[in-house]
């Protein structure tokens, strides 16, 4: 544990993990994300992306500006399914409960 430098706290990704990824040829920030798992936890990279990108620039001898952020994915913050299910924009299949605002069946039973 001594000397362990954590870059991504959600997924426990360390500087050594990043070095390992780079040594295998996985140097694109998108490849590093997948190979190490950094940025795939609850923060979705909001905490760790800059730290990883900075270290990646140092390790690969690139200018930090040459490393774009990985593609950010919606939703902006972790969002419960129950909340999303209320969105009126949902596609209605023929067997869906009728009515524009019909709640999910689970809530009707309550």
């Amino acid at each position, binding site marked *: 544990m001594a000397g362990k430098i954590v870059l991504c706290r959600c997924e426990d990704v360390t500087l*050594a*993990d990043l070095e*390992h990824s780079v*040594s*295998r*040829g*996985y*140097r*694109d920030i*998108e*490849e590093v994300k*997948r*190979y190490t798992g950094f940025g*795939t*936890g*609850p923060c*979705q990279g909001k905490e760790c992306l800059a730290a990883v990108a900075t270290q990646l620039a140092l390790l690969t001898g690139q200018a930090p500006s040459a490393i774009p952020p990985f*593609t950010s*994915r*919606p*939703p902006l913050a*972790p*969002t*419960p*399914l*129950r*909340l*999303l*299910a209320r*969105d*009126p*924009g*949902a*596609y209605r*299949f*023929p*067997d*869906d*409960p009728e009515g524009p605002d019909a709640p*999910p*069946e*689970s809530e009707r039973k309550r």
Partner: protein
Amino acid sequence: MDEEEDTSRADVSGEVRLPATLEGAGPLPEAAEIVIVGGGVVGLSIAYHLAKGGLEDVVVVERGYLAEGASGRNGGGVRQQWSTELNIRLMQESVELCRRFAVDLGVNVWFRQGGYLFLARNAAEVARLEKNIALQNRCGVATRMLEPRQALEIVPELDLTGIVGASYNPTDGILFPWPFLWGYARQAASHGARIFTQTPVSGLEPQKAGGYVVHTARGAIRARRVINATGAWSPRLGAMIGVQIPTYPIRHEICSSEPLKPFLRPMVSELASGLYCSQSMRGEIVGGVTIPGHESTYGMGSTMQFLATYARRLVRLMPILGDIKILRQWAGPYDQSPDGNPILGAVPGHPDFFLACGFVGHGFMMAPIVGKLYGEWLTGGPPHEIFSRYTLGRFTDGSTPPHDKEDFNIG
């Protein structure tokens, strides 16, 4: 390659320094026996099997980063519940290769055989499942029809309202897609194949004596043979030499939840909506839903409509999931073929141009066996029947009878 070249599987510890799997920014080779265009799971599986089969000079060129296309965007399902005998038999072999993947390729792909549970909401769907099950049973796949209450024994969280039946095969499963690519890539490289990412192909130039010059953004490679493994982008590569490939891209969206303690054994799918979800070995609930009527597009944007539709259907089916949170959503392209089946083998009139495309969202699960069969064939073995059945020619010469259409491309 130095003395520490990896032939063991020691790198899981992260302690042994290994040669890079990817070639990075170095120069392309001038010539290759086979150039595989597309570094997705299909291309890499073929590359691995060709290289392992002794073919030297195998080169893979990938337009973007590794896993940028559909191979890095899929749900990781692997099933044998199909509607044609050929696809069932192919997937039986693919499942076996998935089972052995960690041992054979030296990477843990978190393959887990928790089964696939398909849920029917009306009699027509039940009849469809029963017809498929009879065929699957004849092939030796132990799928069985369940009463709704039996489905509840497998997934107690289901709300059975409106469910009238289910099919269940316990040996279907899920895997974590990305390590599959790393495993194939690494072992292909260790057998001498060379993999170049960030190398888009800009042109194919047929040579009088056969073969092609493959022009890329990083230079040209003379190739005796070219394999088109570019998934949804296959028609574009074909068009470079006037080959019309009748597939088209359809965007499918997918999302992933926060990780949960393991509770969901099978992949659960609902025929009515194409809803599917499974729990990965990371604990996340990964799933999607098929909203009908979308136009063909290479766009990979995410929509609120998808998320709302998925949430609505999933919470209806498993109300207890209402409180779990979605962490991220993304999209990937299906390479949609007219009859639901892949397009393989050499192109009529272009004996050095081979296809491995048209997988309709199921290239990942078919890649293990298709790569193996391609490898056996192109290293001198006899061609498997897929190379005479799943030809490009079937769309123009009527060589495939209509009953071979695959109608079970769910989710």
